[in-house]
């Protein structure tokens, strides 16, 4: 029964993949070795598509593998499997967290955790900046500092930094505007 297998396998991934969407990749590779649901080449394409389409990367991957394996129902089953452990675990934690949030030891823990999470998200932003502001590949080929910088991207980035601080619009507006500008001025 392919649906039950998908549900169980993705439930397992949801239960054991700690640290977000990209942490599911090693588990998916294991699945491929075990069942041959998709080829390794397809998996690489799926990662690229999951990263460049909206939505959490882990969900996109589960939907994709489920669809390629067993159609629309397969994608739903794989996604439900992936999400269910999270929902159960977080509901339990949330229940107790609200009761213990005021405890000094919990507060002391979060005193250390909050700056760490800020640093973590800063590093995630830095990763995106690396691939979108700089042209590392071109620089590696020519070794010219000027080739490292992508002037067009830097200009748009500067405008976006200014605009996002100046106007408190919904972030979606900036995302769409930047996409349209990207198409008009042939970015990338």
């Amino acid at each position: 029964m392919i649906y039950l297998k998908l549900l169980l396998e993705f439930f397992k991934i949801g239960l054991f993949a700690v640290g977000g969407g990209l942490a599911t990749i090693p588990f998916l590779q294991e699945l491929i070795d075990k069942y041959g649901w998709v080829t390794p080449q397809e998996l690489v394409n799926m990662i690229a598509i999951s990263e460049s389409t909206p939505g959490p990367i882990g969900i996109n991957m589960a939907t994709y593998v489920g669809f390629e394996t067993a159609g629309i129902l397969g994608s739903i089953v794989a996604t439900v499997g992936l999400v269910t452990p999270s929902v159960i675990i977080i509901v339990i934690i949330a229940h107790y967290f609200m009761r213990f949030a005021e405890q000094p030891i919990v507060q002391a823990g979060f005193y250390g955790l909050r700056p760490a999470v800020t640093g973590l998200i800063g590093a995630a932003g830095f990763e995106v900046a690396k691939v979108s502001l700089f042209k590392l590949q071109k620089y590696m080929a020519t070794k010219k500092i000027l080739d490292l910088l992508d002037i067009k991207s830097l200009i748009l980035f500067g405008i976006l930094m200014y605009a996002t601080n100046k106007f408190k619009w919904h972030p979606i507006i900036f995302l769409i505007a930047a996409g349209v500008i990207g198409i008009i001025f042939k970015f990338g």
Partner: protein
Amino acid sequence: MKELWELFIVFFRIGAFTFGGGYAMLPIIQKEIVDDKKWATNEEVIDYYAIGQCTPGIIAVNTATFIGYKNKGILGAIFATVGMVFPSLVIIIAIANFFMHFQDNPIVQHAFAGVRLAVVALVVNAVVRMWKTSVKDIVGIIIFGLTFLIIAFTKISPVIVIILSAVLGIVLNLKKATER
């Protein structure tokens, strides 16, 4: 029922416009959840991220579940999570069905090159905002700096960093408390 529906809609919007995983959704969460709906404070959102990072599962889903549960119990958790996941299902099925060479399309590539820049700008703003509520003293600055360097430049797992920073927070704070 109206509030459950609202949870679904808000997280649907977040799911539909999050490019690049859980961290990239922070600016939209700050706008929709903290500023507009006031379902959680900025500090609470940071705490949910911390918990989501070191518990199993997708961080985006963990955060949605947390905010949903806090506001409308278990049903709220389910509505928020389904809302978050729904756009992915629709978009990926459409892509898998109709656009096998989706990411090779030049128009798509140009658009994403632009969108990525907006993501960087939005994440920088989000981090500045988080900094104001989370970094209170020199210890905070050091933890922030170390975490940034470790995650950006080494292969060390974020889970280890998160756990160590919590332990550090407890040790330093309890020491301060016993000195008093």
